[in-house]
């Protein structure tokens, strides 16, 4: 494309004299306007810098659930990919699939096995061992529980996870500034 001197171009293709006069501003204010692109580019650059600063390469491994308010903690570690057991005030889920009722588990003082959870975790373990045949199994599970849950329920979840071979538990928390 040829390089030409910048000049007003708006409405120039209309072959009418009064339009041409109006556009060129003969005696009146011209209607030809330039769009201010430089402030727009400045704004975009600021936006890109802000978004880059909040960019996380690891992505979102677990989703914040509306029914769960997680506790806060300062001395934390990064979350790694593992099965997620979520405990809210009503249900216990494994990767989104309901495995038990929270209230039922909270009422009984005995440390009971949650059989659907054990079966689900064992299935996850078999899948992992099939995909990674040469790697040792880490046995890590993420527990994402509401802050007001009785620890008895969490204990039963941990007991069931240990029964399925998941001895390492990561408690999901909201990270506070150090």
């Amino acid at each position, binding site marked *: 494309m040829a390089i030409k*001197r910048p000049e007003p171009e708006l409405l120039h293709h209309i072959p009418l004299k009064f339009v041409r006069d109006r556009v060129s501003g003969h005696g009146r204010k011209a209607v030809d306007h330039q769009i201010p692109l430089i402030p727009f*580019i400045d704004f*975009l650059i600021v936006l890109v810098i802000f978004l880059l600063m909040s960019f996380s390469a690891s992505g979102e491994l677990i989703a914040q659930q509306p029914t769960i308010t997680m506790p806060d903690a*300062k001395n934390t570690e990064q979350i790694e990919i593992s099965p997620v057991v979520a405990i809210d005030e009503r249900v216990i889920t494994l990767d989104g699939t309901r495995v038990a009722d929270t209230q039922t588990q909270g009422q009984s003082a005995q440390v009971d096995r949650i059989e659907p959870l054990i079966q689900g975790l064992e299935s996850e373990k078999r899948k992992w061992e099939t995909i990674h045949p040469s790697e040792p199994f880490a046995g890590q599970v993420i527990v994402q529980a509401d802050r007001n849950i009785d620890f008895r329920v969490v204990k039963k979840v941990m007991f069931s996870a240990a029964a399925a071979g998941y001895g390492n538990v990561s408690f999901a*928390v909201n990270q506070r500034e150090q």
Partner: protein
Amino acid sequence: MAAIETGGGGSGKKAVNQEIPLIPFIDLLLCCVMFLLATAVWNQLAAMNANQQVPGQASTEDAPPEDEKVKLILQIRNSGYVLGSSAGESIDIEKRAVADQKEFDTDELQAKLGQWKQAWDKRDDLIVAPEDGVRYEDVIRAMDIASAAGFINLSMADGAAFL
């Protein structure tokens, strides 16, 4: 549109005026904004790791040094914290009254764990043993304080096993 005008170009020479192509630059920036907005993570989620301790389980490894045989235990009871060890040491940290209700004394726990860390400076393992009825948030807070004090190797155990 932005342009660089030098005023030259007359008398048979090639004009050096240049127009800067801003539209592709804006397109690139808009693509960047869309990609970053789509991949943005707004909530800072993290994890506190702990392994599961089975009380009384015999170790299959070689015998550890004498001081490492002592188990350091932080019990979280409904009445407060108890710092104890299998050597018989026990420190009670009762709940404190705050506006008609009792709360866990986290400041006192922080101070006592700091003293414990000085006494057991080679140790970074601690067994956290919450009792039934304790809120999950209180357990996480105690684990957070223990990590801050230097006990980064945390294990979970049933609080009833140590009563």
